Structure formats: C-alpha cells, structure tokens
C-alpha cells in the first residue's frame, strides 16, 4: 500500500487530484440518492476530476510527444477518461443520475489500481504502432468499452440492487426501475457500434502493418468473441424479444469477456508471442 501511495503521489497533483475528486463525487452522488441536496456538488467534483484527468493526459501526450495509449497504465487512465466523458454525456441526455455514485467510485478505484502498472520508464512506440491508425483504433475501442461498462453497470443494478429501494416511483429524478434495462440496451448498442468500427479499423490497419487482415492473435480472438457475444445479445433482443433478467445476465457475461479481452489476455500462455503484446 505504501508503494501505491507514493506512486500515486509521484504522478503529480493532476493525477491524485482527479482520484480525490472522483472519490468526493462518489460520496456526494451516493449521499444524494433520494434527495437533491448534494447533486450540484457531485456534478462539480465529477467534472473537476474529469478536467484534471484531461489535463494529465494532454500533458503526458505533449511531454512524451506520442499518444499516451501504449502501456497498461496509460490505457487504464484513458479508459477512465472515456468512461467519465460518456457517463457525463449520458447523465445529461438520458437523466442517468443514479449511476454517478458507482461510476465515480469505479473511476477512483481503477485510477488507484492503475499505478500498479505505472510506467517506471518512458516506453516509446514500437515501429508497428507508429501509424495513423493507432489513435482512431484505440479511441474507438475505448469509447466502445466505456459504453459497454455503463451497460454492464446498469445490468448489475437491475439484477442485484432492486432499484425501488432507492428510486421510488416518485423519485425526483423521474426515473423508474425498469429504465435500467432499456438504458443498458441503449448503451450496449452504442458500445457494439464502436466495437464494430474499432474492429474494422483494426483489420485495415493490420493489413498495412502485418500483411493480413486477421492473424488469429489472442487479442484479436477475444475481441472477436466480445463482438459475437454482444451480437448475440442484440439479436436475441430484437428477434426473440429478450429483456429483463436474461438480457442483463448476457450483458454481464459480455462485460466479463470485455475484461478478458482488455486485461486477461495478457496473462495467457500465447500472449508472449502475440502480435498485440507490446508491453
């Protein structure tokens, strides 16, 4: 813990400032369930965390002269930035206020966790990543993952936290418990679209870098599995009318596969010789 503390501190005030902001916003969001009292504070601290993280990423980009998406640490920070942005947009457009608490908490915990992978020495982009496709590919995937995370979170709330307890019919936010399912579906559809874009861009890039659109690399394989799980989710929803619990369980399974694709793949025996294994 001591090492993690010092690594957090040594990343500078923008980094630890955003962690503290997200933690504060989680407290305010959770305290505001059922009452309006802390909503403004929750929003302000959430936005502050986002701004600090934005500055941190910009400075890292400018300082190193290359997009900071290369290492596990950098990608986790960028993932949180995306989750924050997308949640904020959704909160405003879809009135998803009740997700603020879990999202803020998730953000701060992942940022703390990320320092385990802190870049102890500057890692430069290897030749294969020095491409114009690098940024769009990564950004599309991370936006997709962020939407899928929101979808996952709503499915968890739907299944494990009977929302009536927190958000009654007369709750000021005007949301009813059944909304979880619908919002989950919407977020997953957005996520799936971004996954598809990321997959297409990745395949075209792979042709330019390695001479093949598809190489059956472990990361590619798990990205394909992720895509297929959400493909089945959407088709079951459209064609077979899957809703509620069945759909929520599938959404949770989908996000577990996302987690495997994002992090778990690195620990597979085949990862050492994989094309995507840069770090």
């Amino acid at each position, binding site marked *: 813990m*001591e*090492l993690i503390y*010092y*690594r957090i*501190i*040594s*990343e500078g005030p923008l980094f630890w400032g955003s962690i503290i902001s997200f933690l504060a916003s989680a407290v305010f969001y959770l305290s505001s369930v059922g009452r309006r009292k802390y909503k403004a504070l929750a929003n302000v601290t959430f936005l502050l965390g986002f701004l600090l993280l934005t500055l941190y990423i910009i400075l890292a980009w400018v300082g190193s002269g290359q997009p900071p998406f290369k290492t596990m640490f950098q990608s986790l920070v960028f993932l949180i930035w995306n989750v924050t942005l997308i949640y904020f947009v959704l909160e405003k457009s879809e009135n998803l206020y009740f997700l603020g608490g879990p999202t803020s908490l998730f953000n701060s915990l992942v940022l703390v966790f990320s320092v385990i992978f*802190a870049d*102890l*020495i*500057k*890692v*430069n982009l*290897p*030749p*294969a990543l*020095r*491409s114009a496709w690098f940024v769009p590919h990564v950004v599309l995937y991370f936006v997709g993952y962020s939407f899928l995370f929101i979808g996952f979170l709503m499915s968890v709330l739907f299944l494990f936290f009977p929302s009536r307890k927190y958000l009654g019919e007369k709750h000021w936010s005007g949301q009813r418990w059944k909304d979880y399912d619908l919002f989950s579906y*919407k977020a997953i*559809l*957005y996520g*799936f*679209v971004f996954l*598809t*874009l990321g*997959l*297409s*861009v990745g*395949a*075209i890039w792979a*042709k*330019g*870098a*390695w*001479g*093949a*659109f598809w*190489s*059956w690399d*472990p990361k590619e*394989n*798990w990205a*394909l*599995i992720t895509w*297929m*799980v959400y*493909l*089945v989710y959407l*088709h*079951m929803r459209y*064609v*077979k009318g899957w809703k509620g619990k069945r759909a929520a369980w599938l959404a949770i399974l989908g996000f577990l596969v996302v987690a495997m694709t994002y992090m778990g*793949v690195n620990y*597979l*025996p*085949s990862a050492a*010789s994989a094309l995507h294994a840069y770090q």
Partner: protein
Amino acid sequence: MGKRLSYVIIFLLSDFLLDFVLRGQTSFLKFAAGAVFLLVFFFMGRQILSQYQTASILFGIFSLAVAYSTFLSTTSIYYSFWFNSLLGLLLASVLSCILTLKPALSLRYLAFLTLHGSIFIVAAGLLINSFWARRCYLPLHRGIEVNYCHPIEHNRVLEAKEKFPFPLKLLDFRVDYYSRPLVLGVFLRQGDKFKIIRTFELKKGREYFGLKFQGFEESEIRVKEFWGEGEKGRAPLGRISPRGWVYSRQAFPGMIAIVDGKERRFYLPEKGQAIVLPDAVVIIEDFYREIPGHNMELPTLALRVYSASGQGRAFLPEGPKGISLGSAHLFYSLSQEMPQILSPAEVFVQEKTVKFYRAEFLYQGEPVELLPFEEPYVAGKFAFRLFRAPSQEREYISIVQVPGRKMKLRVNHPENYRGFLFYQSDYNPSDPDFSGIMAVGEPGSPFLYLGFILMALGAILTLVYRRKQWS
C-alpha cells in the same frame, strides 16, 4: 430423429466442403463435388440453419473454440479441419438467417443489408484469397540479388524455396533507435529491498526536486550539462586527464549536475565499455539488471578486469577476474592493486551479503562518479539513482531494388509492385546486412477492404436507425 440426423449430415457435408475450400485444394473434381454438396447442404439444412437459436448456438460453440485456442501456444488449430468446418457452418447459418428476411425500401433494411452483407463480402474476399493468394518471405542480404522466396503457410515460413517472379536486391538496411536519455530513478525502501517508485528523464537546465516526500525534501538535482552524445562533443576522458591514468576508449557519456548546491560530475558506463588504467583494463561485462522493472532492486555492475600489456593495447585475461564474486570482493581487490581507485566506501547494503562500493575516478583532478556506483541519496526510506534509459527501436528501414525502381520499406508502409505488397518483416540484430521482407499478393483484398468499410458504415446506419426509432 429426423432433425438430429439432418444436423449430423449438415456437419459432415460442411466439413468436407470447407476442408477443401479453406485448405486451398483447388482441383476441379473437388470443386465440383463441393458445389454439389453445397446445394444439398442448403436444400437439407437451411430450415434448421436459418433459425436464430441455431445461429446463436453456433456462435457460442465457435466462441468457445476460439477462446480455447488462445490457451494453447500453437496456432495450428486455426487451420484445422474441425475449426474451419465450424466457421463455415456458422457463416452458412448466418446466411440462411439473412435470407429469411424480406427486402424493403427503408433505412432499417439499408442498415441491415449493409451490416450483414459486409460479412459476406469479407467471406468472399477470404474465399478468393484461399484459392489465389500468395504469401512468401524473402531473406535479403545487402548487395545480393534474390529471385526466390520461402512460401508462408498458416503464418509459418516454410523451408521450401519457390521462384519469385522478379529479382530483388537489398541496397540498404538500418534500424533507428529512440534516444537514450539519462534517467533519475526514485526508490522506496521496503525492508531490505528498494522498490522503484518512478523515474524522470533528465533534461538540461531542469531541476528535479525530491518530490517533497518525507525525509526527502532537501535533495535537489539540477542538470547543468551533459557530456558526450552530442551535447558537449565526444571528449575521451583519458586524453585530457592530467594524471594520465584515467582513460576511456569511448565517449564520455556523463553530466555535470548540481546536487544539493554542490557541483558533481557523473560518468555513466555502458555495457561492453572499457576503462583503461596504467596497469589494468576494467571492462564492464554486464549490468546486474539494466532495465528497471517492478520490484526491482538497485542494479549493480559486473566488471571484468584484465592486465594490460604493450601500453594498454593488448588486453590479456589475467589478474583479478572476479566477475561474479560480487562487487565487494572485486573492488577490494582493485583498491589493493590499483591506487587510483580510492578507498571504497560502503554506501549501501542490500539483502544477503552483497555490498556496493563506490569507485572514484578523476577528471582534471576532480572526482568523477560512476553512476551505478554513485552514492545513492538515501534519505529516510528513499533513494535516488541515475542511469541511462534502455535502448528502444523506433523504425526498421530497408531500401530494396526491384526492376525499374527502388522501394523504401518500413513497418506500416508497405510498397506495391507488380501485384505484390512488400512488407518490412523482420531483421537479425547480429547481422546488420540482413533484412526479411514479406511479399503478399492477395486478389481478394479489395473485397476485404470493401467488406470492412461496409461493416463500419452498416454499424453507423444501424445506430442512426435505432436513434430515430427511440425518438
């Protein structure tokens, strides 16, 4: 029973069909047989295959198969009979599902058609490539013309040689590296071990504070200037040494820094570098650990010491050679035999009995410190250490001559010539005159590009349609 039997038949037929298609066995007889089986296959199996449950089950099985394959260290599974059969069956099922839908002039159908149709354009591209694609590897040596290649099958380069349609000659090859800045590492003491917290690249004129940690506030480093590697020219240390017994054959990659208000000179040795002394030569054999990683201990050096004869030009492996005896023993011997190495001072005790000592050299009468042996600024539970960043490759560049033109090949920048795309594939670090080039001729590629573009477009259209529906 009838249904089950149909499943078995469909599976067996698709196996046969895909086995010959995807393995590229292109004899007319097999092709005709495949076409017949294809018709029978659709006739018998379409009703079952066109059900969404079937497609979902196949997606599930295929996903499990792909997931299973990632736990293996071999890639041969992707070219196996059963894997390709499963993939073919899945595609057939998806196609059957699509064919059950009736076309209509609407945004919904357009989105549907674009997204789903793209899968089949991709599949068509793959099918064309399975028949007519050519991939091979050309091992090029500088100045030597090559007109053969090794075929690549299932992502493996085969030993067999094939004639290539035209000759290629490697005119030049080089590897570009990122610069290697000096780095300041900050460590945290945990028991007997020091764990790295983070590092800072040192830049000229910039100040590095002690991060305001407990017991660390007072330390400050300011880099005054760098020596060697372009900043201050390449000044061999020995030629300008007033005493004549400190010498380096190589450039002096060091720096002058202000540490806690006091100017200090640092010298950073490189692996393989020799420091020539009047009666011995110290060669830096290796670093204990050159690249700092997680939970890393403070690195040390392994030194090899030779006696010099003939004014330091011939180095014989004599004298104290204690390479792996540990720094303490080695430097004890050195200090006894070589007065220019001043009395070693213990600066740090690591786990077990290994001790680290500081060797002091002189430059124009002033002390110069070897960085890995410099006194770590141990303050409370923290320590500083200076080292050079590890070498990282930036670009591989081959200049290749083909009839009528020169190609510059880099990773991510293939060149097109006579129906082939040429890729910078690999190189040999121990042979600077070698470069591995991959040649790919894939007539199905336009389909694949089109398929992936349509897939992206279809995804966007689907979102547009759904948003309209929601609103």
